[in-house]
């Protein structure tokens, strides 16, 4: 009887999750998605808690209370820190899967070794390896995003790196195979921690060669892994809800990773094993090109006289927290009857959709946030393209220069606008370490300085000097 009720609850919860994701297809219904997700989770938790095998209620209450105590502050981080938070929550997800797998193994080995069928062992080992590698990998990713000092920001590479990683993974799989064959032998419980250690190190080694510009893809892949470890747990526990929810999460991470890879014209393997983002020593071509600089006054005048302005934000906007100043600029331009659109590149920022969230936070209507493919159509009509802390995503070398590491990557055609203003913090190349031909183009004028400060000056010019010029 109890079993039937529990299964029915899990069925309802699965349906809730599918609805939750379905409602995310437009901002108008998206919040319903959150409520459906909460409902599904609550139903599943209550149904599980009501299981007659549960006797230690205090432990559950304490652990859940601790989860709330940490979870609530984690949900209030500034939105610029959302990539780190996301990576951290992948780490928590991986840790939970890894620990449950470990507990299941040791529990069954003493209580019911007969239940450790080869299939269940494969699922269990998959859960444990995926879980722990997601844990350590995501922690590394979060550390990189948070710019913790002892974690190297630039990709760490060495000779034979991929070979070493593969060897490590191979060893883990070999040991896993051995345990799967005879899970109840005397040495198996001693071998198990070795697999855990190998998975943990593999996660770290997988992330250290990855540069900041590839973080959106990596976060999406880790998202997928966290989902797959939940699927594996579902197979171990023979729980269809876990399989469903994990598969939804896994496919979501997969799709986001594919979108990110397409937006960079790169393959999965290239992102994971290509060690992108090193400074290219060859990129410094002999001739020194020179920038043309513009003052905020001059830029403000040109902005004022235009009728269509496209703002292209990048990670620099997030770093400088410039989104609120940009909203002021947006309002001032709108008041003058100027059309203002934001061009959003899929990999701008450090995670999928990063720019949209920051601009929405600044109260910019999402109807003015335009995807790359749609805005490129209109770029030749734009009077001004204002690049705020974006670099590689507007680099025309991606279209023309076959020797460039980003050749073939779809970009926002900022260079097709009548005038380009590029706000840039310093004269150094961007995260990918590639010179940007856009900055040297005839129609481009540079505004050097912190994005927030420069946009602030533009706002001051436009607000103070209205009608004077």
């Amino acid at each position, binding site marked *: 009887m109890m079993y039937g009720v529990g299964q029915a609850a899990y069925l309802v919860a699965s349906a809730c999750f599918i609805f939750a994701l379905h409602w995310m297809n437009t901002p108008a219904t998206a919040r319903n998605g959150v409520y459906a997700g909460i409902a599904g989770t609550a139903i599943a938790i209550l149904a599980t808690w009501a299981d007659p095998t*549960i006797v230690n209620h205090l432990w559950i209450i304490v652990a859940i209370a601790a989860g709330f105590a940490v979870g609530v502050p984690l949900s209030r981080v500034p939105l610029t820190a959302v990539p780190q938070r996301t990576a951290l929550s992948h780490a928590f997800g991986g*840790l*939970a899967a890894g620990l449950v797998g470990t507990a299941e193994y040791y529990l069954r080995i003493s209580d019911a070794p007969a239940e450790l069928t080869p299939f269940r062992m494969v699922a269990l080992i998959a859960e444990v390896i995926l879980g722990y590698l997601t844990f350590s990998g995501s922690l590394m990713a979060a550390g990189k995003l948070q710019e913790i000092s002892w974690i190297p920001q630039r990709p760490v590479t060495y000779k034979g790196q991929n070979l070493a990683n593969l060897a490590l993974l191979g060893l883990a799989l070999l040991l896993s195979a051995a345990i799967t064959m005879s899970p109840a032998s005397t040495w198996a419980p001693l071998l198990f921690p070795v697999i855990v250690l190998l998975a943990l190190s593999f996660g770290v080694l997988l992330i250290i060669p990855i540069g900041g510009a590839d973080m959106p893809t990596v976060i999406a892949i880790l998202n997928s892994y966290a989902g797959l470890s939940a699927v594996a747990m579902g197979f171990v526990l023979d729980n269809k809800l876990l399989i469903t929810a994990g598969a939804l999460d896994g496919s979501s991470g997969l799709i986001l990773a594919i979108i990110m890879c397409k937006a960079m014209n790169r393959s999965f393997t290239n992102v994971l094993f290509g060690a992108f983002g090193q400074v290219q020593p060859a990129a410094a071509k002999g001739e020194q090109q020179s920038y043309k600089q513009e003052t905020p006054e001059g830029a403000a005048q040109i902005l004022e006289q235009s009728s269509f302005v496209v703002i292209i934000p990048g990670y620099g906007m997030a770093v400088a927290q410039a989104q609120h100043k940009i909203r002021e600029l947006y309002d001032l331009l709108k008041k003058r009857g100027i059309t203002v659109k934001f061009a959003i590149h899929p990999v701008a920022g450090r995670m999928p959709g990063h720019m949209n969230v920051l601009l929405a936070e600044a109260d910019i209507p999402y109807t003015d946030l335009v995807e790359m493919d749609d805005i490129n159509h209109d770029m030749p009509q734009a009077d001004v393209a204002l690049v705020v802390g974006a670099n590689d995503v507007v680099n025309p070398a991606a279209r023309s220069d076959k020797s460039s590491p980003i050749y073939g990557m779809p970009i926002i055609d900022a260079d097709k606008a009548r005038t380009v203003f590029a706000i840039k913090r310093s004269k150094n190349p961007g995260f990918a370490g590639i010179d940007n031909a856009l900055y040297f183009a005839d129609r481009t004028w540079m505004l050097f300085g912190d994005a927030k400060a420069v946009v602030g000056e533009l706002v001051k010019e436009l607000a103070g000097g209205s009608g004077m010029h």
Partner: protein
Amino acid sequence: MPDNLELGLFVFMLATFVGLEIIRKVSPLLHTPLMSLTNAISAIAVVGAILITGGDYPLHIRVLGAVALFASTTNIVSGFLITDRMLKMFKTSDKRDDGRRS
């Protein structure tokens, strides 16, 4: 057992296809909240953690379960809260002025 395994694989395959179809339709505007939402949803691993923490098992097993339960609850709570916080900010231009403090 083989029956259950077969059923599990079917569920996995179908859920993956459903997931791929639904996620493809999610607006790129919402990719960040989507990620935090799926994160909270996949923290449904909490079910496994509850069974281990609350069961009549040796202490060390239950400690592993309790840590897992803590980690999953953190994900559930922070995942849903931050997703809602982000989604609240997505407004169209006509609704924008109502919500703004003056």
